[in-house]
């Protein structure tokens, strides 16, 4: 009995699993589903993730569709701006299937790749049209006010969205961005030439600036230096003048006897002059060397002797 009970449970489990596989299908969180009954799509839409009941094949077939946002990129192609630039532009689009019932019949088996083929031509024509309305300066400009980059993306988005809506593809375009801009190879060559000459102009400007600035610094320094010295000399003269003025007060003393004053100064000067490294040539008449001559008899001495 125990044996049968266990077998029964196991058998039931197997049956359950079998039933799940045949009569139930899941819609995963990243998916949506369309169910066809004998090849014709059901009216009911399966967009919420859950498990649903179905009849097994060949009565019903479940087609899974991706509900996630897809990343579509178009080709890097030339578009012509109104001011004659052959701009190369590459655009990327975030889109998703929004209405499986509409989408499924239009694109075989709900294929994303099929839809992207259609999307590509829509995007290309939108790109051509919108870019054809904007001059080159709208794409690139150092003046932020002139730049219309985001606006161009916005216009392309709206254009693609309206095309999609008009055709009832069951698709939703979430966002659009310009991925890449470029120029034809021949044009890049011309750009290089221009860049080269711009750089050369810049080089000479830098050199001139450098020369001029350096020379200005030097001459300013020189003028400042001589000014400083001249000012100092003026001050120095003033100081000396002060000294002389103060000294002049003392000169008043000398007025008491100018001749005597002169004499003292002369004596000083003589001594200072002959202080070092002097060679003096004397003759015997200079006092006190006149003592070296034979003494002349002096009357005073004789008179002393006779006493």
């Amino acid at each position, binding site marked *: 009995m125990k044996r049968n009970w266990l077998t029964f449970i196991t058998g039931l489990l197997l049956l359950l699993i079998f039933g799940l596989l045949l009569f139930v299908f899941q819609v995963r969180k990243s998916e949506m589903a369309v169910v066809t009954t004998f090849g014709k799509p059901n009216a009911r839409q399966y967009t919420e993730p859950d498990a649903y009941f179905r009849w097994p094949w060949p009565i019903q077939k479940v087609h899974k569709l991706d509900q996630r946002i897809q990343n579509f990129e178009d080709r890097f192609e030339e578009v012509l701006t109104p001011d004659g630039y052959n701009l190369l532009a590459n655009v990327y689009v975030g889109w998703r299937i929004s209405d499986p019932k509409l989408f499924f019949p239009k694109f075989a088996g709900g294929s994303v790749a099929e839809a992207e083929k259609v999307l590509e031509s829509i995007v290309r024509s939108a790109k051509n049209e919108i870019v054809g309305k904007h001059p080159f300066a709208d794409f690139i400009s150092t003046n932020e006010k002139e730049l219309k980059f985001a606006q161009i993306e916005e216009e392309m988005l709206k254009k693609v969205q309206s095309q999609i809506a008009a055709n009832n593809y069951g698709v939703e375009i979430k966002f659009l961005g310009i991925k890449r801009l470029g120029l034809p190879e021949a044009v890049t060559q011309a750009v290089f030439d221009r860049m080269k000459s711009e750089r050369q102009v810049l080089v000479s400007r830098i050199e001139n600036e450098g020369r001029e600035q350096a020379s200005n610094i030097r001459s300013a320094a020189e003028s400042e230096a001589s000014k400083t010295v001249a000012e100092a000399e003026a001050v120095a003269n003033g100081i000396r003048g002060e000294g002389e003025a103060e000294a002049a007060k003392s000169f008043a003393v000398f007025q008491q006897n100018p001749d005597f004053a002169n004499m003292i100064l002369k004596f000083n000067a003589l001594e200072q002059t002959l202080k070092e490294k002097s060679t003096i040539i004397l003759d*015997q008449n200079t006092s006190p060397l006149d003592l070296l001559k034979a003494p002349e008899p002096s009357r005073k001495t004789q008179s002393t002797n006779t006493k």
Partner: protein
Amino acid sequence: MSEHDHKHPVAPAPVTPEEAGSQALSHALGSSFVIVRVLMIGLVIVFLGSGFFTVGPQEQAIVLRFGRPVGEGNKALLGPGFHFALPAPVDEVVRIPITQMQTVTSSVGWYATTPEMEATKSEPPPGPSLNPAIDGYLITGDANIVHARATLRYRVTDPIRYQFDFANAPSLVGNALNEALVYAAGQYSVDDALTRDVTGFRDKIYNRLLRLIDQQQLGIAIDPPTVQVIPPRQEPVKTAFARVLDASIQRDKQLNEARRYESDLLTTARADAASITNSAAADRTRMVRFVAAEAKRFSDLLPQYEKNPEMWYRLQQTEVLRRVFTNAQEKIFVSSRADGKPRELRVQLSREPQKPSQK
């Protein structure tokens, strides 16, 4: 069988070969059924047990039961550890890398290179010009061409959205980075993007990225990207850019030299000025003192002089001459000629320098 034996206590019936064979078979079958049953139960246990799973430290996981997440919103996220889910096809475990930093690099704007060349830091030779099909580049705001490359590190902050709402979320993040790069380059002049305002350029990209991530609700948080910008590698553009750099360096050197000259000159001038005024001050002091000293001496000596001028003169003269003769280096005494005629003296100049007197 056993009952039968019990009722008839006779010798057991002889076992025929056919009976023995079928006996053995049913015995074997009986035991093999046991084995099969054991196996089946074992399989069921293993099947149920396959639901256990672990979540790593850098991940989170969601259990989809019949496709629907178990739990509401963010509560559905399971953290690191040991968890149980029913086995497939009932439950599906989806792992999402969440705390680890993802990295994405821009795919437009840089010249064509390979990972091997990147690793060895070499580069492919630049062609004569840029072929848009092969080489990437950006157009700057002043219609110049540069190469730029940005690397972005980001974290997934909304794992459910990141995982389930985008078919290829990393690719979309990459394209947002590309768009931001093209957008920013078109607003910056080549000089600003290359050298003068590199931070501003990077910030422009960063802010544009934040805007796009918010608009598109990518469910990530980003660090500011690292950006690398270089001028084209084609000659003569490359050399032209290098020359500008050289010219800038030269100019800076020139200016530094000029400033050094300025500094030296002014320092010297100030020093000279100070010495001029100091020397004047010293002169003044000296003069004042000298005259004061002389005046004092005069005043001191005047009374003596006035008492006897001639005597004072003779005394003074003798004293001064004594000192002079002591200090003089050489004294030459010339006696008068007997005949009274003046002597002729010849003086040889530029002799050996005299030694200073030793005092």
